[in-house]
């Protein structure tokens, strides 16, 4: 059965809640009462449950099978985390309650901060950024604030061409010109080109490590030293921290700032697109510029510092300001801390090892069939990169292969990213897949590839078994329909 739109099912006079009676009062709406119909269809509770349950079954989630999106990191989401985040002591407290009534919440934030600082080997952390890209912004704002504080106006940020698209967008947002640094043949930053470009106009280098080809940047220490010598800062995109957590502390490499995607490394759920959470760790050089508010341990408990001018604080004394209305993604903090405590120092190290092992197993098992552009240069980290070169001449591409995987019951890998590799396929299994699950994926990918090479014409129109066949994305963008317009139907 197809599930109609809410607007086709519901009606303005239907309702799935019961409310107490409204006391009669003289209204104080200043004549601004809303008179016209809003157009919001309602449903009774049973119909609501059914509508959304049916819709949910048109979705794929990590609970149903492997979700091997490279650079997106879809790992198991423990239900313990969900349970903890729903404790009334966390879920039902207001951000502006008196601080004496939220000491446990502040303690949780402080505890999580300690874990993040210890795992990264960095002295400071800003907790409030709401997502990875928001964290990048936080880091770059601190860098610019630090440079301005020393009166050093610089104008350029260097970004390797394999970077996440958010990196250049963030640098531009902070008023910097962006220059790309090329990759070398081994899929890493061209260190010599980078060093050559450093100079008094360069404010920062934004570098992803492990990078978006799934490779560790071996020259990282060297690069950081060179950047610092040139008076600039190193921003590290920490999206792939899950590959090295517990095995490498980014602080030991010399970086100045890095965001951590709690939903990637620390398993908070993606929920079909968010919410995320992107705390940023800072070096001593940047710590004074970290944003407000922040939690500070005092002799009696914990304090939430919301405003610099009102207090004589020694830390964050040159904070660049507030990034969000309140204090960050508390719900995600609880989940991430539950995950960290569950794994502990030993378990988090195992997380990195298993994530890397799983990715290399896939790489090793498929590189005879799939083109693996950097496999010759050694092991990968948490994700295996392939390209569709092996399909040359068939007229088939990465897209066809991805759609064919859907018919086999798998979510496809990341397609066409990183941009440095043509027809890229980036496969990230994560540490929460079993060997049996990987063997199933590998078997399916081998079999599809072999069949595509044998009979290309049979593979141009997948998927056939999904809730929908290929969707017309061009048409959608050309004449966008972004809203259900037919008020009459809804009112009927």
């Amino acid at each position, binding site marked *: 059965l197809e599930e109609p739109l809410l607007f086709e099912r519901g009606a303005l006079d239907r309702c799935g809640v019961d409310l107490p009676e409204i006391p009669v009062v003289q209204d104080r709406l200043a004549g601004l009462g809303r008179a016209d119909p809003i157009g919001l269809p309602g449903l009774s509770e049973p119909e*609501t449950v059914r*509508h959304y349950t049916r819709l949910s079954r048109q979705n794929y989630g990590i609970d149903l099978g492997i*979700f091997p999106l490279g650079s997106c990191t879809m790992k198991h989401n423990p239900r313990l985390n969900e349970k903890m985040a729903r404790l009334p002591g966390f879920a039902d407290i207001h951000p502006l309650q008196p601080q004496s009534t939220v000491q446990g919440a502040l303690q949780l934030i402080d505890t999580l901060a300690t874990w993040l600082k210890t795992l990264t080997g960095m002295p400071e952390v800003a907790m409030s950024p709401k997502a990875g890209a928001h964290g990048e912004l936080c880091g770059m704002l601190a860098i610019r604030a630090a440079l301005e504080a020393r009166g050093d106006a610089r104008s350029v940020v260097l970004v390797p061409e394999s970077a996440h698209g958010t990196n250049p967008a963030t640098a531009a947002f902070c008023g910097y010109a962006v220059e790309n640094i090329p990759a070398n043949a081994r899929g890493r930053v061209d260190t010599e080109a980078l060093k050559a470009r450093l100079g008094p106009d360069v404010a920062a280098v934004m570098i992803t490590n492990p990078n978006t080809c799934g490779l*560790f940047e071996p020259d990282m220490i060297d690069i950081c030293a060179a950047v610092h010598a040139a008076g600039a800062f190193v921003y590290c995109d920490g999206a792939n921290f899950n590959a090295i957590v517990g095995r490498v502390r980014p602080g030991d490499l010399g970086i100045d700032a890095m965001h951590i995607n709690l939903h990637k490394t620390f398993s908070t759920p993606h929920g079909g*697109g968010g919410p995320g959470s992107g705390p940023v760790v800072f070096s001593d050089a940047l710590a004074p510029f970290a944003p407000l508010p922040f939690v500070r341990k005092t002799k009696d408990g914990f304090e939430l510092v919301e405003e610099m001018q009102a207090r004589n604080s020694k830390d964050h004394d040159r904070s660049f300001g507030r*990034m969000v*209305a309140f204090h960050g993604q508390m719900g995600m903090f609880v989940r991430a801390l539950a995950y960290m405590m569950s794994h502990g120092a030993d378990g988090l190290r195992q997380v990195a090892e298993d994530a890397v092992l799983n990715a290399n197993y896939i790489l090793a098992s498929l590189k005879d069939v799939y083109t693996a552009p950097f496999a010759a240069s050694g092991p990968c980290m948490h994700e295996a990169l392939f390209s569709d070169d092996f399909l040359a001449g068939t007229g088939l591409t990465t897209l066809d292969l991805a759609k064919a995987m859907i018919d086999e019951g798998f979510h496809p890998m990341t397609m066409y990213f990183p941009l440095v590799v043509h027809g890229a396929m980036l496969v990230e299994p994560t540490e929460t897949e079993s060997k049996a699950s990987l063997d199933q994926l590998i078997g399916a990918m081998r079999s599809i590839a072999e069949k595509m090479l044998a009979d290309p014409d049979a593979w141009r129109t997948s998927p056939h078994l999904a809730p929908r066949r290929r969707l017309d994305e061009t048409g959608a963008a050309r004449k966008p329909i972004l809203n259900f317009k037919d008020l009459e139907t809804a009112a009927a």
Partner: protein
Amino acid sequence: MRYLPLTQPDREAMLTVIGAQDIDALFADVPESARLTAPIAGLPNHSPEMHVERALGVMAAKNLSAGTVPFFVGGGAYKHHVPATVDAIIQRGEFLTAYTPYQPEIAQGTLQVLFEFQSQVARLLGMDVANASMYDGSTAMTEAVFMARRVTRRSKALVSAGVHPHYVGVLKTLTRFTDDEIATSTPDLTPGKPGDDLDALIAAIDAQTSCVIVQNPNIFGHIADLAPLADACHKAGALLITVVTEVVSLGAIKSPGEMGADIVVGEGQSIGNGLNFGGPYLGLFACRDKHVRQMPGRLCGETVDADGKRGFVLTLSTREQHIRREKATSNICTNSGLCALAFSVHLTLLGEKGLRNLAGLNHARAVQLAERLGRIPGVELITTSFFNEFALKLPTEARSVIRKLAERQILGGISMGRLYPGIAALENGMIIAVTETATDEDFDAFEDALDEVLA
């Protein structure tokens, strides 16, 4: 290690396939000096689920949760009753553990929900089109200012004194290194229309003005007719940006769209989402059709599949950073999909009828409490037209009053001293929110305690 499926024999078999001698060989690219040879010091090892529950339970128990006491705190986050159905649905694994719908053929669940969400939000705000959500209200407001600059090619933003000071703080932070000029002022406690500087704003609009930003109801709960301001903006070629932090109000009062706003942003937490100590919340963003290509954030659109069946996809991604990189409309990447789902489910349960009743109830209860508190000697009701939130002027500094109420297990509101530190003229001000969750007994307890504290 309950989350890790690999067994030791699995690991060994896999290393053999890879041709690596041991796991360390896979980390060969890491410089020797940066390789940790043992679990990181200073952190505990793995814990049983039971122990994690116990430790976090102890922390949670140290907080005074809203549902256990008389509770009147608002200021941009509101305690409403969320039906149990909402949480049951968002915990369905297919919603909870899905990623951004990059493969629409197997993500129609998320996509149809987003399309329905966009449609609900657009109607609620009285606008043509809404996006698929943003981080929160404050960041959505900042994005609106940037969008107004793109649309108008001007860079001066006038911010009403009634806008939530934290929202203004975020805007100032994020424009610190841009060319934007942000004109703000400080509110006062003159009774009647606190924070209402619409006339002054109209007077200040000039040819450099990209946008005027007002909040309605404003931080003091005051509601105003924005139509004259909208007219003034449009005459000057500027955009009117309206912020709504309590979206339940739109079941009772005219929408910003009906009053002429060009961009409406909001905090959607009130519907479907809990307080959560400030996050995750739900940024709402809506605009007119003509500006849609300048809009930030994800958009879901209707299309057809190869068989001609209706389906949904993410669309207009040419605005986004994964395509545009440094030329993107915003660096925003994730949205608040799960919070948007919760919002949409709750609003579906309410429907037009339920939302209007809920709003009516909130308003009536707030009027009842405002009138009771306003009769306490020395207390003055500052906000005379409001939805479910109002400001009082106390005979003494409000911060300590709030603290004393908390000692009596009453969460009585927000002191203006906390929101506007260092501004003496505001320090006796207190902002009180009333929702359907407050009982008559809560009213009694609050009134008695306030009486006592002020005596």
